[in-house]
């Protein structure tokens, strides 16, 4: 195809991506008779042998409950679990492992902040600032909180052709006295990489507590919570090669120490009487019950795996694929793309004229390509963009340009199918 101008995009640094890909058993299969092309990484990533084997080894050799046994296996399980916490602290450059709370995922992390810090600190008339590109999981917990305490929600608009945040409106909204500001690091629909350090710096200067939704960024770029300057940051293990069911909430220790517990149970207490209990210190105060120990073991292996490749290299690779895909798709007549052309994160969202996203995704699936079609848990943003849904291809380091070329060929075939069968 004439629009395949490959020389315009030099390849990212010299990493043996094909060798890395071969560590993912699931990718070596055919779907509907075609080699699987997995482009739904923003929903969840696939898992390398290193992660699968670490979980297996934990259950084969080290499984017991944590923090309460005196026996050898319990000591091993506790060491694995707390070792995982230390590893997360270094992964995001937290000042202390006490700032790392294990959750079920990004959604629970945000809900935890709303249910603890939010309920303790917000009152009627206070303002919570979000942006129009937030995932439902960074909208609905704040709606529930605002309904409960009588606080008010405000939104930073997305503007312009590329739908980036309106920074002037942001400054103006902060001036209205915002108590809490929560923002996504990377938009899962638009592929926009928000200037989170600048946003957090301004919000904190205006007196707001800051929350970063790092679901789409944690496995794709180097995270440094101290450089970002956020008070809280939440992410999920399963989008960064780890297992489902495990996630992380980072919180600055002085704030965590001031917060009431989240759920009640074992682990989160210091002493329990029939009518009154005292609570453990952070992070245990926020981890009631037996935690997802094998999830932490798997997440630990995932972080080691990502760092063995290098997160800078991963980011360059994913960005290269996204910009390559954006370029190729922009040359196809009848395809509308969302978000910026350059400087984007590793995904592209698009619409094909006269072909609904669900039909497109069904057709792509028949050719072995896993795409996402729908509102991507971004219904308010979709309304603003004036579209019911989009199709999305989201990339990871095991994807390559040949797969993107194949996607574009298949999309052109889909377009041909619908136009040749058109009666209009």
């Amino acid at each position, binding site marked *: 195809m004439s629009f395949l101008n490959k020389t315009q995009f030099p390849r990212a640094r010299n990493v043996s991506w094909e060798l890395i890909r071969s560590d993912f058993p699931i990718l070596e299969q055919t779907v509907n008779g075609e080699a699987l092309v997995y482009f739904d990484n923003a929903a969840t990533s696939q898992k390398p042998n290193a992660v699968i084997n670490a979980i297996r080894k934990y259950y084969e050799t080290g499984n017991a409950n944590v923090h309460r046994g005196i026996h050898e296996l319990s000591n091993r399980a506790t060491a694995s679990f707390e070792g995982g916490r230390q590893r997360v602290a270094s992964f995001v450059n937290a000042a202390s492992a006490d700032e790392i709370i294990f959750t079920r995922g990004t959604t629970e992390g945000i809900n935890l902040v709303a249910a603890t810090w939010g309920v303790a600190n917000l009152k009627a008339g206070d303002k919570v600032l979000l942006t129009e590109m937030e995932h439902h999981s960074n909208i609905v917990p704040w709606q529930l909180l605002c309904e409960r305490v009588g606080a008010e929600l405000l939104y930073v608009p997305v503007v312009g052709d590329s739908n980036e945040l309106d920074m002037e409106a942001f400054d103006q909204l902060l001036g209205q006295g915002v108590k809490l500001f929560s923002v996504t690091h990377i938009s899962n629909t638009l592929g926009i990489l928000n200037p989170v350090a600048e946003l957090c710096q301004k919000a904190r200067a205006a007196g707001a507590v800051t929350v970063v939704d790092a679901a789409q960024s944690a496995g794709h770029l180097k995270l440094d919570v101290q450089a970002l300057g956020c008070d809280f940051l939440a992410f999920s293990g399963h989008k960064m090669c780890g297992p489902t069911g495990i996630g992380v909430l980072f919180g600055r220790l002085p704030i965590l120490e001031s917060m009431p517990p989240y759920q009640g149970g074992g682990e989160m207490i210091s002493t329990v009487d029939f009518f009154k209990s005292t609570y453990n210190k952070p992070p245990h105060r926020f981890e009631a019950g037996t935690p997802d120990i094998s999830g932490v073991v798997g997440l630990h292996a995932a972080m080691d795996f990502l760092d063995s490749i290098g997160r800078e290299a991963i980011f360059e690779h994913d960005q290269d694929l996204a910009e390559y895909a954006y370029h190729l798709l922009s040359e196809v007549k009848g395809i509308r793309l969302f978000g910026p052309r350059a400087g984007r994160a590793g995904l592209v969202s698009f619409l094909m004229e006269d072909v609904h996203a*669900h*039909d497109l995704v069904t057709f792509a699936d028949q050719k072995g390509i896993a795409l996402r079609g729908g509102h991507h848990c971004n219904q308010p943003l979709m309304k603003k963009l004036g579209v*019911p849904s989009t199709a999305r291809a989201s990339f990871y380091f095991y994807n390559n340009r040949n797969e993107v070329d194949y996607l574009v060929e298949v999309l052109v075939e889909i377009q041909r199918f619908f136009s040749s069968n058109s009666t209009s």
Partner: protein
Amino acid sequence: MFDDLSDLYQQVILDHSKSPRNFRVLPQANRIAQGYNPLCGDNITLYLEMAGDVVKNVAFQGSGCAISKASASILTETLKDKTTSEIRSLFGRVHDLITTGKCDGDPIGKLAVFAGVHKFPARVKCAILPWHAAMSAIDGKQEPVSTE
């Protein structure tokens, strides 16, 4: 290139999705039902004008994929002049057709184009949504229906 899908996305379905029949608001409607699948965003408003037990007129509005739109369009052609008991019986047969590819009884006419949907389980909810909206309308239910 898309052999299995060509069976499903036949000319009839593509035609009805591109040029849906009875695609309008029906001002004289006395039964209105909403069908909405929040996960995929398909939504349909179905308007029925009933005279006693018989559907005199039917129309729809909404947005969705080719399958849901064609299903709604063909449904509006099918329901006209049918009684509620005929529609209830037809619903059962259409449900069987969409979920299994087969249905008992007399030939089902144009609706036969939906026999291929069951091979694509993720799309069954798209084809069946307008039919649930129709049942909701004749039952006089107020809340929107969903097939997710």
